[in-house]
């Protein structure tokens, strides 16, 4: 394992110190491992808090700032944050209008956020949870842990964050988050496995020339392995897999997030994006907005995920609303 770290045990603390130095406009509570906006809002506003294992940067710390999250809680690498941390975040940013937890659907994340919500309730902080579960690679049944949360998290955080910024109340912000999640589907393909620093070697071995189809962002192996194929074929398959699960028809508009998993050059993402756009155009589906880049990564994994969110005027208007975070920024 070759990594630019000091020691596996200090990765998170060291990265947080660097994040704090790089982003003086944000506040970093290094003891509690909480990143927040600096200063409380003048009038009470719904606070959006997210968190999850580290190793997915810029998720979530890179999305803290006006128009998006109020706080982010990074856990250890690929390990959900702990309830204490989430409670500290809620205490730091709530301003009387309640808190929305944006939680990616993994057993660990769900349980830790659940315990935190109980603790917050004990402190008189009202909490709603938006569960993100967009990964169509996973069977969605009541007998399993359900679908994983991946790329849609960025869209939930951006769009619900914009609504919270405008002063909407807790129920409306949470309901919109749920709506964005319900309108979103994702699917990922990996060319290599990620190496967790503490593990010291890749999470799985993938022979040269094979890919993992339907991989998770923690290096959870996917649905199946198959030989590498040209990018355009992979893009088409990913689009088709998502469309098979999604209620999209000709004339519909989407927001598309073509996301690099950390080890994939941007030029390859553009190659893929061209093929994604072609395939969608062939189905009469228009990409109204897009992001191409590394937003929800999996350490050094090579590969990509595609997220398609069915758009409507409200979602597009909120998507376009100003945002000023380390990783997403426009006005």
């Amino acid at each position, binding site marked *: 394992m070759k990594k630019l770290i000091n020691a596996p045990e200090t990765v998170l603390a060291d990265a947080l110190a660097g994040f704090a130095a790089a982003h003086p406009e944000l506040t970093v509570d290094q003891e509690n491992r909480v990143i927040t906006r600096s200063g409380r809002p003048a009038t009470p506003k719904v606070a959006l808090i997210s968190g999850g294992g580290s190793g997915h940067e810029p998720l979530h710390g890179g999305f803290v700032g006006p128009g998006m999250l109020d706080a982010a809680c990074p856990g250890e690498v690929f390990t959900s944050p702990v309830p204490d941390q989430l409670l500290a975040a809620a205490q730091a940013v709530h301003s009387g209008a309640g808190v929305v937890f944006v939680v990616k659907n993994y057993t660990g994340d769900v349980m830790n956020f659940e315990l935190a919500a109980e603790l917050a309730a004990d402190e008189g902080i009202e909490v709603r949870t938006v569960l993100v579960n967009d990964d169509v690679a996973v069977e969605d049944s009541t007998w399993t*842990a359900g679908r994983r949360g991946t790329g849609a998290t960025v869209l939930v955080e951006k769009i619900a964050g914009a609504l919270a910024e405008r002063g909407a109340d807790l129920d409306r912000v949470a309901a919109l988050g749920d709506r964005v999640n319900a309108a979103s589907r994702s699917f990922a393909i990996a060319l290599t496995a990620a190496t967790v620093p503490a593990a010291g070697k890749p999470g799985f071995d993938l022979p040269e020339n094979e890919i993992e189809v339907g991989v998770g962002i923690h290096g959870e192996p996917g649905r199946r392995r198959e030989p590498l194929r040209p990018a355009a074929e992979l893009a088409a398959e990913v689009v088709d897999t998502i469309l098979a699960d999604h209620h999209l028809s000709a004339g519909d508009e989407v927001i598309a997030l073509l996301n690099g998993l950390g080890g994939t050059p941007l030029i390859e993402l553009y190659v893929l994006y061209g093929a994604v756009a072609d395939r969608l155009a062939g189905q009469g589906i228009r990409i109204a907005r897009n992001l191409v880049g590394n937003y929800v990564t999996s350490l050094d994994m090579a590969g990509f995920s595609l997220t398609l969110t069915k758009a409507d005027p409200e979602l597009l208007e909120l998507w376009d609303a100003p945002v000023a975070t380390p990783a997403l920024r426009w006005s």
Partner: protein
Amino acid sequence: MDTTLAHTWLRAVAAAVEQRQQELTELDAAIGDGDHGSNLHRGFTAVLPAIEGLGSAGEVLTKAGSTLISKVGGASGPLYGKAFRAMGSALTEGGDFGSALAAGLAAIEKLGGAAPGDKTIVDAWAPALAAFERTGSYADAAAAAEQGALDTVPLQARKGRASYLGPRSIGHQDPGATSTALILRALADSAPGPV
């Protein structure tokens, strides 16, 4: 369970996790995300100073549980945390170790919703409880947990991260069931003799 045994047990767990961290991580890498060993290592390393000086087995286990919740994260943190807290409460309320084990299992099932056969912690904990209820022996509980962990190999996971793999989860031993067996083996090794 007396106070000394509670302390000895947790020290033994910490030592065993330290020693078998890599093995747990590798099991987790195969069907999960490769952090189970480091999660438990972080957790039990924090438990030892936290329980220092505590004067009853109930307090010790409760504090261990709270510490796990605060330090571990992931799925195993809340599950083992709640389980140890429940065991501590049961002892504090005067229950015997069998009732403590039962309370721990109930806490895990309540929080995680897993049933036997789902390829989780439950698959080691439930047989351990049954064995202990039958014989009252820590060693029997440990052996049953170990067998339970082995028996997860052919199962298809229905809870936790391994469930994403569907049929591909078959053929691997569950990391959480394995760590449960480790925890109970540490108890059997710590106990002075038959209870």
